[in-house]
């Protein structure tokens, strides 16, 4: 199986995966990155939900985690202002009912 990591123009890791694409990495590197990605995603979720404070997060990750939380809040504010198409609204209502 081929493992890869994918970076953006600023050399930030944006994804890992299996299959074609990206830069090939070893299985061990893949597993390490997967663990780090999941840990960071969990921290973003916890910080966003006010379950933790920024001081709980390792210093070297604090800036990144805080930035991602800020981006998420900004995105959700943008979404809140967006008009929802009629059929999507209907589907959303159906799911609630």
């Amino acid at each position, binding site marked *: 199986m081929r493992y890869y990591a994918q970076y953006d123009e600023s050399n930030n890791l944006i994804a890992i995966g299996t299959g074609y694409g990206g830069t090939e990495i070893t299985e061990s590197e893949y597993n390490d990155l997967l663990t780090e990605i999941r840990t960071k*995603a969990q921290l973003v979720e916890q910080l966003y939900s006010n379950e933790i404070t920024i001081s709980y997060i390792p210093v070297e990750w604090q800036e990144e985690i805080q930035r991602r939380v800020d981006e998420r809040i900004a995105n959700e504010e943008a979404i809140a202002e967006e008009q929802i198409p009629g059929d999507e609204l209907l589907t959303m209502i159906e799911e609630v009912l």
Partner: protein
Amino acid sequence: MSYNSDLQNNNNNLYNILNIINSLPSGEKEGQTKIAIPSLSQQIIAPDTGKHLSSVQVQPITNELLTSLDGDFIADNIADGVDLFGLVGTLAGGGAQIATGTFTLTGEESTTINYTVTHGLGVVPNFAFCVTNMNVNNKISEYGICLLAGVNNKIYSLWRGASSRWTFYGISDALTNTSPVQNARIGKATDTTIRFGNIMSNGGVSSYGYFVPGTEYYWMVGVV
């Protein structure tokens, strides 16, 4: 007889022997060897003038030789995994061609509404799906995404909502459409890539259904 007389007789005998040798047929001429390389046409291996063939060495048949004789003898034209004369084929299918993989987004990008994977099929797929574990105990992950594309290059988008049931969620234009229609969570496909995602026709971002950072998504595309 004297010693000199004996010596003269011997010389005469040697001279006669030399004449006999010189008068022997051509088959007794100087030998030579030649090398023959198999070809697509009949070959006649003949000795050079004044010589005879003592041996002809025929070169072995190798995949390099066969490729030089016929440019179609390449790995791409041999079934995947089949070894012919030491050349292992890479030609997939003959029927369906399938490519699979996974991806996990870091969330580093400000949006995770779409992601382009490289499938490497070499042809534009006519079906695809992308799915994740729907049982992640996470509010956002409850909105798992499942994309199906198939008949007549239409894309059938299904996903599971918060009510834990599957919802048929629209049919898009062809996979090659650069502007996915509303609610079809899939984008442009090429012969090398396909975009899974959540882009809507109005350019907006759905409030749910986007890829969840840290969650592993499984994809499959193919041609049948």
